[in-house]
C-alpha cells in the first residue's frame, strides 16, 4: 500500500521559505496568491495490504523520522 505523509510547519512557526515564495509571486504579478506555506511530502511504499496497519506504520515513521515534532506537524493519507 501507499501512504502519503504531509509535513508542515506548525502554524505558529515562521516559514521564511513560504514567505519568500509568496513575495516572489507577488512581484511576478500573482497578487491573488495571498500566502504560501511550504512543507514536505513523502510517499511511502508499504509491504502491507491493510489500510489501518499502513496508517499506523506511517504515523510511527512520521513521528520518529519524517517530522520534527518541535516545529512540525503532519497528516497522513492512505489509499
Amino acid at each position, binding site marked *: 500500500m501507499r501512504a502519503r505523509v504531509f509535513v508542515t510547519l506548525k502554524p505558529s512557526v515562521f516559514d*521564511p*521559505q513560504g514567505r*519568500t*515564495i509568496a513575495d*516572489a509571486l507577488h*512581484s*511576478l504579478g500573482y497578487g491573488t496568491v495571498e500566502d504560501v506555506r*511550504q512543507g514536505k511530502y513523502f510517499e511511502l511504499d508499504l509491504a502491507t495490504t491493510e489500510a489501518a496497519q499502513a496508517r499506523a506504520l506511517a504515523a510511527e515513521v512520521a513521528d520518529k523520522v519524517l517530522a520534527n515534532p518541535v516545529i512540525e506537524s503532519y497528516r497522513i493519507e492512505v489509499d
Partner: protein
Amino acid sequence: MRFGIVVFPGSNCDEDAYHAAKDVFGQDAEYIWHKDTDLKGADVVILPGGFAHGDYLRTGAMARFSPIMGQVRAFVERGGPVLGICNGFQILLESGLLPGAMLRNRTLKYRCEHVHLRVEQTDTPFTSAAKVGQVLRIPIGHGEGNYFAPSDMLATLESNRQVILRYTDPNGELDPDSNPNGSVNAIAAICNESRNVVGMMPHPERACESLLGGVDGRMIFESVVETLARGPERPALQAVGRAF
C-alpha cells in the same frame, strides 16, 4: 575589457568574482544589480555564486525572473560570453539558458573542498587556454550540485561535446569516490549549443592566488580575457575531447 558581475539579492560570491577580475587580472569590472535594465557595457557576464533569494524553493528558481535576466538572454543571443559559477550555473539551468537541472548532493550535505577536474573541451571562451585532458584542482562549495539530465538530453550533451569539465581523481581518471555530489557522468561544467554560455559548479575565483592555496582557476579567466582580446571571430574548433 569589462566584466559585468550580476548581483542578485542573496548572491555572495559577487565580490569574489569582482576581486578576481579587477584586482587579480587587472580588468574592468562592474556590478550589475538584478533590477538594472542594462549590462553596463560588459564584454563578459558572470552570474556569481551564492544563494539568490535564499535559494528557497529551488536553487536559482526565483532569480531567473529578475529583470536583468532578459538582458542576459539577449547578450547570450548576440554571442556574448556568459559564465555561471555555482549558484550562477543553477540560475542558468533554471532559466533554460543551459540544459538540465540540479539535485541535492548525493550525500545530502553541503560540501566545501578542493576537487579535481578534467578539462573535456577547450572550444569555449572559458576554457580556450586549457588543454584537453588537463587536470585542474579547484574548490567547490555547494549543497545542490548533483547535475542531472534525462537520458536523451544527456546523450545530446555528450554528442555535442557540451560537457566541459568532469570530476576525476588527481590523475584525471573517473572514479565514483572523486565525484563529490553524484552528478550524472561526473559532470562539473557544461556549455550551451553555441558554446558561449558555460555553467560550472566549482569556483575558479577561489583559485586565482597562490596565497589561497592554488591557482588553477586562473585558466578560466585567462581564457576569456584572451578570447575577447583576440576579437570577435571564434577560435577554431579544437580536437574533439575524450569521449565519456
